């Protein structure tokens, strides 16, 4: 029995509890948070190497036989995502030291972050569909905490919308689980996979598959149900936004990936075709939004939507290249979105506005910021050798291999829109005549914001250049997704 | 024994039902809040106590299962039912719910006015 895979979930959970004490002692809060994060990162890294050596790690709680207890499964996909999540959280927390403000730190900001990490990591790791719901709720509830913390007007206004949407999606999630339980009579994901294979996915399961797609799609912000995202994400402070932008939609994407590769693989011509169409429409919708705005936050936020579309496009191909690309791109996007949000956070800090038309000439005053932004932007677009390239390449390859020629070309074309939107920020904010500058900039605070951001960008560069070292891991991840039997066998034999 | 027990149970339940129905009719038909609250509190408390006793005896005598929670429940209802109705009526009066036009005597009114005067509230 192997409890090790639990540590990246339980350690943040435990620290979240610890942090509920002594909320007025900021030094204690910060140090404890950092300590907890570092500890979890070490465990997560250990987990990745263990999964790499021994295959998927399984633990079924309470020593119950498999479909009856709750099983946690850490395969390569989830282990990698867990590690990425924790690393990003470390950077964002670090960044937040300088920007989140003492008031928020005193009101359970760090607890909220630790809880959200618990939720996200749990959702990545769990092998039980109802438990997935519970973890979703954990991360949603903590996201409510974080989005509303501070009680500024815009925050309150947008949180209502955000919460409303998520309440509805949670209700839909629960009833979808109920439908699934009604038909296959089990909740363990591996067991569900086997049972669906046994009855060869009749029509009703396809309907449930579509429901799952839409439920998770609501979180992931796919096409007809992404509307809530841009306004909701515009409200919270930058570190929280970075956390959300990097993690939350990705949990939805992960869940779609998981269910669509593990459960519903017997009627590809319907389910995955639908996924393909929706992903393309998502890209288009994201592109329209990214072009429509001259607000730095909104541009990056819409880029989340585009990226979600691209990843799901890769998933919809259901071949090894596409899935491997999807995993690579997923992790890339988590890193780069966090970095971009942190960067524009600094831009907003030094200019005091989010409106691009008021900015200009930052390249002269803050050249390093400009360079790092440029690198991150090209990474976002997928310019080699930066981080987005290999993922996009594999996704495109998967698309062509699956004979979706025209849609694949569309995906490629979307990169140009991404480029235009990212370059628009660069040209307006960094080039040109000197624009608005905030009078309150302190050099010290700027540096404290800039260092973690720069390091994260550097990390993304390494992610791109050092892809070769990652490929074995990514290959493992893709294999699990391509062949559900690896997952189900590991779970069913107990995974010792 | 069983028959005797049954008769006891049926008796209690029937009585309780009667009170309950009366209470329900009262709440439905009586003209104002205070009269309705009266029906609701007195009659229904009695009704529910009877029925619970019936249930208690049923389980005790027939199933041989002495259940103290029911007795506790009876006691609880006995304490709280009237108190609840009282509080409710008083609050409503203070909040300004007018009694039925056919009300004969309103003893609370001068008292309230006296208190208002004491605390200088208009």
């Amino acid at each position, binding site marked *: 029995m192997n409890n090790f895979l639990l540590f990246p979930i339980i350690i943040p959970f435990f620290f979240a509890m610890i942090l509920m004490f002594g909320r007025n002692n900021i030094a204690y809060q910060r140090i404890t948070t950092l300590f907890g994060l570092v500890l979890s990162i070490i465990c997560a890294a250990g987990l990745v190497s263990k999964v790499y050596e021994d295959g998927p790690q399984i633990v079924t709680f309470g020593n119950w036989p498999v479909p009856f207890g709750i099983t946690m499964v850490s395969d390569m996909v989830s282990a990698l995502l867990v590690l990425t999540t924790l690393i990003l959280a470390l950077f964002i927390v670090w960044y937040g030291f300088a920007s989140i403000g003492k008031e928020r730190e005193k009101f359970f900001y760090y607890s909220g972050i630790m809880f959200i990490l618990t939720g996200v990591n749990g959702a990545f790791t769990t092998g039980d569909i109802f438990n997935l719901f519970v973890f979703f709720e954990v991360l949603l509830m903590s996201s409510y905490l974080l989005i509303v913390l501070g009680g500024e007007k815009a925050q309150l206004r947008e949180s209502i919308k955000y919460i409303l949407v998520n309440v509805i999606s949670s209700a839909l999630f629960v009833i979808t689980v109920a439908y699934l339980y009604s038909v296959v009579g089990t909740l363990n994901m591996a067991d569900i996979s086997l049972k669906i294979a046994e009855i060869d996915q009749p029509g009703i399961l396809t309907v449930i598959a579509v429901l799952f797609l839409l439920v998770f799609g609501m979180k992931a912000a796919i096409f007809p149900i992404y509307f809530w995202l841009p306004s909701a994400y515009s409200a919270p402070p930058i570190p929280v936004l970075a956390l959300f932008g990097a993690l939350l939609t990705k949990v939805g994407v992960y869940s779609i990936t998981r269910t669509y590769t593990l459960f519903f693989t017997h009627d590809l011509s319907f389910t995955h075709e639908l996924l393909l169409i929706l992903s393309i429409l998502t890209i288009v919708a994201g592109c329209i939004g990214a072009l429509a705005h001259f607000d730095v936050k909104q541009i990056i936020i819409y880029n989340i939507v585009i990226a979600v579309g691209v990843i799901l496009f890769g998933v919809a191909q259901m071949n090894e290249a596409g899935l491997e690309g999807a995993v690579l791109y997923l992790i890339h996007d988590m890193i780069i979105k966090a970095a971009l949000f942190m960067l524009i956070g600094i831009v907003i800090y030094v200019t005091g506005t989010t409106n691009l038309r008021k900015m200009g000439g930052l390249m002269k005053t803050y050249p390093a910021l400009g360079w790092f932004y440029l690198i991150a932007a090209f990474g976002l677009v997928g310019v080699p050798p930066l981080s987005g390239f290999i993922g996009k390449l594999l996704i495109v390859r998967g698309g062509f291999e699956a004979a979706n020629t025209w849609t694949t070309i569309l995906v490629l074309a979307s990169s140009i829109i991404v480029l235009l939107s990212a370059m628009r920020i660069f040209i307006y904010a960094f080039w040109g005549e000197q624009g608005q500058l905030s009078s309150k900039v302190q050099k010290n605070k700027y540096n404290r914001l800039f260092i973690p951001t720069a390091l994260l960008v550097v990390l993304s560069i390494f992610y791109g250049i050092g892809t070769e070292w990652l490929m074995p891991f990514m290959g493992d991840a893709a294999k699990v997704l391509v062949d559900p039997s690896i997952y189900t066998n590991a779970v069913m034999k107990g995974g010792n | 024994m069983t028959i005797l027990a049954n008769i006891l149970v049926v008796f209690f339940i029937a009585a309780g*039902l009667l009170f309950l129905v009366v209470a329900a009719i009262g709440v439905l038909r009586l003209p104002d809040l205070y009269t309705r609250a009266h029906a609701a509190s007195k009659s229904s408390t009695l009704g529910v106590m009877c029925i619970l006793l019936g249930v208690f005896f049923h389980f005790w005598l027939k199933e041989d*299962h002495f259940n103290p929670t029911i007795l506790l429940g009876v006691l609880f209802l006995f304490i709280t039912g009237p108190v609840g109705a009282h509080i409710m009526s008083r609050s409503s009066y203070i909040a300004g719910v007018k009694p039925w036009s056919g009300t004969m005597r309103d003893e609370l009114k001068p008292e309230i006015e006296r208190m208002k005067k004491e605390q200088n509230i208009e």
Partner: protein
Amino acid sequence: MTYFLWAAIIIVALSIVALVFRLVKGPNPSDRVVALDTIGVALICLVGLFSMLIDTSFFLEIILLLAVLSFIGTIAFSKFIEKGDIITRDDSR
């Protein structure tokens, strides 16, 4: 006996319907609260009778609970009606 219980349940249920009518009709909130309180009482009866009907004692816990909650509800509502707020921070002021 079963038929008797059936009849009893239906009578209680019907009186609940009557009370619900009052609850919906009003005319003012206090009436509704009184109706709700009485519904609570009727529910207690219903639960008791129902446990007899299906011969299980597991629902009897609910009886006391209902009584408790109905009382708390009534108190809370009355305080709300009286003061517009059910919790006062400091009465001595």
